[in-house]
Protein backbone atom coordinates (compact mmCIF):
# COMPACT_ATOMS: atom_id res chain seq x y z
CA UNK A 1 0.00 0.00 0.00
CA UNK A 2 1.45 3.35 -1.06
CA UNK A 3 0.26 6.67 0.24
CA UNK A 4 -0.17 9.69 -1.98
CA UNK A 5 1.68 12.64 -0.46
CA UNK A 6 0.91 15.17 -3.20
CA UNK A 7 -1.79 17.05 -1.19
CA UNK A 8 0.97 18.06 1.27
CA UNK A 9 3.41 19.26 -1.39
CA UNK A 10 5.14 21.60 -1.86
CA UNK A 11 6.15 22.19 1.75
CA UNK A 12 6.74 25.72 2.99
CA UNK A 13 10.42 26.57 3.69
CA UNK A 14 9.79 26.56 7.46
CA UNK A 15 8.02 23.17 7.37
CA UNK A 16 10.74 21.67 5.18
CA UNK A 17 13.52 22.85 7.52
CA UNK A 18 11.66 21.62 10.61
CA UNK A 19 11.10 18.16 9.11
CA UNK A 20 14.74 18.04 7.97
CA UNK A 21 16.00 18.94 11.44
CA UNK A 22 13.89 16.13 12.95
CA UNK A 23 15.01 13.56 10.37
CA UNK A 24 18.18 12.70 12.32
CA UNK A 25 16.92 12.58 15.90
CA UNK A 26 14.21 13.78 18.27
CA UNK A 27 14.69 17.42 19.31
CA UNK A 28 13.09 20.08 21.50
CA UNK A 29 12.07 23.50 20.12
CA UNK A 30 15.35 25.29 20.74
CA UNK A 31 17.26 22.28 19.40
CA UNK A 32 15.24 22.45 16.19
CA UNK A 33 16.10 26.16 15.81
CA UNK A 34 19.80 25.49 16.34
CA UNK A 35 19.80 22.56 13.92
CA UNK A 36 18.06 24.65 11.24
CA UNK A 37 20.64 27.43 11.68
CA UNK A 38 23.43 24.83 11.40
CA UNK A 39 21.97 23.12 8.31
CA UNK A 40 21.44 26.41 6.49
CA UNK A 41 24.81 27.79 7.68
CA UNK A 42 23.02 30.62 9.46
CA UNK A 43 21.13 31.80 6.37
CA UNK A 44 17.70 30.71 7.58
CA UNK A 45 16.81 31.70 11.13
CA UNK A 46 13.51 30.63 12.57
CA UNK A 47 11.89 32.53 15.45
CA UNK A 48 9.98 30.73 18.23
CA UNK A 49 6.63 32.05 16.95
CA UNK A 50 7.12 30.66 13.45
CA UNK A 51 8.56 27.45 14.86
CA UNK A 52 5.70 26.56 17.20
CA UNK A 53 3.05 27.79 14.77
CA UNK A 54 4.44 25.39 12.15
CA UNK A 55 4.95 22.59 14.67
CA UNK A 56 1.31 22.86 15.67
CA UNK A 57 0.25 22.64 12.01
CA UNK A 58 2.58 19.69 11.34
CA UNK A 59 1.27 17.86 14.42
CA UNK A 60 -2.32 18.42 13.29
CA UNK A 61 -1.42 16.99 9.87
CA UNK A 62 0.23 13.97 11.51
CA UNK A 63 3.73 14.65 10.16
CA UNK A 64 5.28 15.32 13.59
CA UNK A 65 4.39 14.02 17.05
CA UNK A 66 5.49 14.71 20.61
CA UNK A 67 8.19 12.31 21.72
CA UNK A 68 6.94 10.35 24.76
CA UNK A 69 10.20 10.10 26.70
CA UNK A 70 12.75 12.93 26.67
CA UNK A 71 16.39 11.96 27.25
CA UNK A 72 17.17 11.33 30.93
CA UNK A 73 19.89 13.98 31.18
CA UNK A 74 17.72 16.79 29.85
CA UNK A 75 15.28 19.24 31.44
CA UNK A 76 11.92 17.39 31.83
CA UNK A 77 9.99 20.61 31.13
CA UNK A 78 11.24 20.64 27.54
CA UNK A 79 9.04 18.85 25.09
CA UNK A 80 10.67 16.74 22.41
CA UNK A 81 9.29 16.25 18.93
CA UNK A 82 9.87 13.49 16.39
CA UNK A 83 9.05 12.71 12.80
CA UNK A 84 6.27 10.18 12.17
CA UNK A 85 6.60 7.56 9.44
CA UNK A 86 4.01 9.53 7.45
CA UNK A 87 6.08 12.71 7.95
CA UNK A 88 9.17 10.84 6.78
CA UNK A 89 7.30 9.85 3.62
CA UNK A 90 6.21 13.43 2.97
CA UNK A 91 9.78 14.68 3.48
CA UNK A 92 11.13 12.06 1.06
CA UNK A 93 8.50 13.03 -1.53
CA UNK A 94 9.41 16.71 -1.14
CA UNK A 95 13.13 15.97 -1.51
CA UNK A 96 12.39 13.95 -4.67
CA UNK A 97 10.34 16.87 -6.01
CA UNK A 98 13.16 19.31 -5.27
CA UNK A 99 15.66 16.98 -6.97
CA UNK A 100 13.60 17.01 -10.15
CA UNK A 101 13.39 20.83 -9.96
CA UNK A 102 17.19 21.07 -9.61
CA UNK A 103 17.71 18.58 -12.46
CA UNK A 104 15.40 20.58 -14.70
CA UNK A 105 17.06 23.85 -13.74
CA UNK A 106 20.52 22.44 -14.54
CA UNK A 107 19.39 21.28 -17.96
CA UNK A 108 17.91 24.68 -18.83
CA UNK A 109 20.80 26.69 -17.44
CA UNK A 110 23.35 24.56 -19.26
CA UNK A 111 21.59 24.86 -22.63
CA UNK A 112 22.79 27.82 -24.77
CA UNK A 113 20.43 30.78 -24.79
CA UNK A 114 18.87 31.84 -28.03
CA UNK A 115 19.64 35.38 -29.14
CA UNK A 116 16.67 37.74 -28.85
Amino acid at each position, binding site marked *: *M*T*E*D*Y*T*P*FLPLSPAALHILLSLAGEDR*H*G*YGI*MQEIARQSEGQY*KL*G*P*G*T*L*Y*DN*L*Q*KLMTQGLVEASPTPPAHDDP*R*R*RYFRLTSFGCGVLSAEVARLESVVREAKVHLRAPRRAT
Partner: protein
Amino acid sequence: MRTCYRCLLCLHPPVFRREYAGEMLWIFDQSVASQGVTALLFDGLGSLARQWLLRSGWWKIALALSLAVLQVVLGGFATMIFGHRHLVEPAQDPSVVNMAEFAHGGSIAHQPLTVGIVMYLAVFITGGLTVMVIGLTFWMKSFGARRRHAALRVR
Protein backbone atom coordinates in the same frame (compact mmCIF):
# COMPACT_ATOMS: atom_id res chain seq x y z
CA MET B 1 11.17 43.67 26.45
CA ARG B 2 10.61 40.28 28.06
CA THR B 3 7.38 41.66 29.52
CA CYS B 4 6.34 42.85 26.04
CA TYR B 5 6.97 39.39 24.63
CA ARG B 6 5.07 37.79 27.51
CA CYS B 7 2.10 40.11 26.82
CA LEU B 8 2.28 39.09 23.15
CA LEU B 9 2.13 35.43 24.17
CA CYS B 10 -0.87 36.15 26.42
CA LEU B 11 -2.75 37.45 23.36
CA HIS B 12 -2.42 34.09 21.53
CA PRO B 13 -5.40 31.69 21.45
CA PRO B 14 -5.73 29.79 24.78
CA VAL B 15 -5.00 26.34 23.31
CA PHE B 16 -1.76 27.51 21.70
CA ARG B 17 -0.78 29.49 24.80
CA ARG B 18 -1.24 26.54 27.14
CA GLU B 19 0.78 24.26 24.88
CA TYR B 20 3.71 26.42 23.81
CA ALA B 21 3.90 29.78 25.65
CA GLY B 22 6.29 28.51 28.35
CA GLU B 23 8.72 27.04 25.85
CA MET B 24 8.50 30.12 23.62
CA LEU B 25 9.39 32.38 26.52
CA TRP B 26 12.30 30.13 27.42
CA ILE B 27 13.55 30.23 23.81
CA PHE B 28 13.14 34.03 23.82
CA ASP B 29 15.53 34.20 26.79
CA GLN B 30 17.99 31.88 25.06
CA SER B 31 18.02 33.50 21.63
CA VAL B 32 17.53 37.20 22.40
CA ALA B 33 21.27 37.80 22.17
CA SER B 34 21.72 36.06 18.82
CA GLN B 35 18.50 37.07 17.01
CA GLY B 36 17.77 40.48 18.54
CA VAL B 37 14.69 41.72 20.37
CA THR B 38 13.07 43.37 17.34
CA ALA B 39 13.21 40.25 15.17
CA LEU B 40 11.75 38.14 17.97
CA LEU B 41 8.94 40.63 18.64
CA PHE B 42 8.04 40.77 14.94
CA ASP B 43 8.15 36.97 14.84
CA GLY B 44 5.75 36.88 17.80
CA LEU B 45 3.43 39.38 16.08
CA GLY B 46 3.42 37.25 12.92
CA SER B 47 2.62 34.16 14.95
CA LEU B 48 -0.20 36.05 16.71
CA ALA B 49 -1.76 37.11 13.40
CA ARG B 50 -1.44 33.61 11.91
CA GLN B 51 -2.91 31.94 14.97
CA TRP B 52 -5.99 34.15 15.13
CA LEU B 53 -6.61 34.63 11.42
CA LEU B 54 -5.59 31.29 9.91
CA ARG B 55 -5.53 28.55 12.54
CA SER B 56 -8.43 29.46 14.81
CA GLY B 57 -11.00 30.04 12.06
CA TRP B 58 -11.46 33.72 12.92
CA TRP B 59 -10.48 34.56 9.37
CA LYS B 60 -13.92 33.37 8.35
CA ILE B 61 -15.55 35.97 10.61
CA ALA B 62 -13.13 38.68 9.36
CA LEU B 63 -13.76 37.78 5.71
CA ALA B 64 -17.52 37.61 6.23
CA LEU B 65 -17.48 40.98 8.02
CA SER B 66 -15.45 42.56 5.19
CA LEU B 67 -17.83 41.13 2.58
CA ALA B 68 -20.85 42.35 4.55
CA VAL B 69 -19.36 45.86 4.76
CA LEU B 70 -18.59 45.74 1.03
CA GLN B 71 -22.17 44.66 0.39
CA VAL B 72 -23.54 47.60 2.38
CA VAL B 73 -21.17 50.08 0.69
CA LEU B 74 -22.09 48.80 -2.78
CA GLY B 75 -25.76 48.97 -1.81
CA GLY B 76 -25.26 52.56 -0.67
CA PHE B 77 -23.58 53.52 -3.94
CA ALA B 78 -26.30 51.82 -5.96
CA THR B 79 -28.95 53.72 -4.00
CA MET B 80 -27.09 56.99 -4.59
CA ILE B 81 -26.77 56.34 -8.33
CA PHE B 82 -30.14 54.76 -9.15
CA GLY B 83 -32.23 55.87 -6.19
CA HIS B 84 -33.33 59.20 -7.70
CA ARG B 85 -35.50 57.37 -10.25
CA HIS B 86 -37.76 56.05 -7.51
CA LEU B 87 -37.99 58.98 -5.19
CA VAL B 88 -40.90 58.69 -2.84
CA GLU B 89 -42.44 61.12 -0.44
CA PRO B 90 -41.05 60.83 3.07
CA ALA B 91 -43.28 58.95 5.47
CA GLN B 92 -45.64 61.03 7.56
CA ASP B 93 -44.24 59.65 10.77
CA PRO B 94 -40.42 59.65 10.52
CA SER B 95 -40.14 56.75 12.94
CA VAL B 96 -42.10 54.51 10.56
CA VAL B 97 -40.32 53.08 7.51
CA ASN B 98 -42.44 51.96 4.60
CA MET B 99 -40.81 48.57 4.07
CA ALA B 100 -43.19 47.53 1.30
CA GLU B 101 -42.23 50.63 -0.67
CA PHE B 102 -38.53 50.04 0.02
CA ALA B 103 -38.81 46.41 -1.10
CA HIS B 104 -40.43 47.50 -4.40
CA GLY B 105 -37.64 49.83 -5.40
CA GLY B 106 -38.38 52.84 -3.23
CA SER B 107 -35.41 54.83 -2.01
CA ILE B 108 -34.59 55.54 1.60
CA ALA B 109 -31.65 57.74 0.60
CA HIS B 110 -33.57 60.94 1.31
CA GLN B 111 -35.32 59.76 4.44
CA PRO B 112 -33.98 60.63 7.88
CA LEU B 113 -32.09 57.84 9.65
CA THR B 114 -34.62 56.21 11.90
CA VAL B 115 -34.59 53.30 14.30
CA GLY B 116 -36.45 51.22 11.71
CA ILE B 117 -33.78 51.77 9.05
CA VAL B 118 -30.99 50.97 11.49
CA MET B 119 -32.80 47.81 12.57
CA TYR B 120 -33.32 46.82 8.95
CA LEU B 121 -29.59 47.29 8.20
CA ALA B 122 -28.61 45.37 11.35
CA VAL B 123 -30.81 42.41 10.38
CA PHE B 124 -29.48 42.57 6.81
CA ILE B 125 -25.81 42.56 7.94
CA THR B 126 -26.30 39.87 10.60
CA GLY B 127 -28.14 37.62 8.15
CA GLY B 128 -25.43 38.11 5.52
CA LEU B 129 -22.69 37.40 8.07
CA THR B 130 -24.37 34.21 9.26
CA VAL B 131 -24.87 32.90 5.74
CA MET B 132 -21.25 33.70 4.78
CA VAL B 133 -19.74 32.09 7.90
CA ILE B 134 -21.84 28.94 7.44
CA GLY B 135 -20.95 28.80 3.75
CA LEU B 136 -17.22 29.27 4.38
CA THR B 137 -17.24 26.66 7.16
CA PHE B 138 -18.86 24.04 4.93
CA TRP B 139 -16.55 24.92 2.06
CA MET B 140 -13.40 24.57 4.23
CA LYS B 141 -14.66 21.27 5.71
CA SER B 142 -15.21 19.80 2.27
CA PHE B 143 -11.74 21.04 1.26
CA GLY B 144 -10.14 19.36 4.31
CA ALA B 145 -12.02 16.13 3.65
CA ARG B 146 -10.82 16.09 0.02
CA ARG B 147 -7.21 16.56 1.19
CA ARG B 148 -7.45 13.75 3.73
CA HIS B 149 -9.14 11.48 1.20
CA ALA B 150 -6.44 12.17 -1.39
CA ALA B 151 -3.67 11.57 1.15
CA LEU B 152 -5.00 8.16 2.08
CA ARG B 153 -5.77 7.10 -1.49
CA VAL B 154 -4.26 3.74 -2.42
CA ARG B 155 -2.40 3.71 -5.67
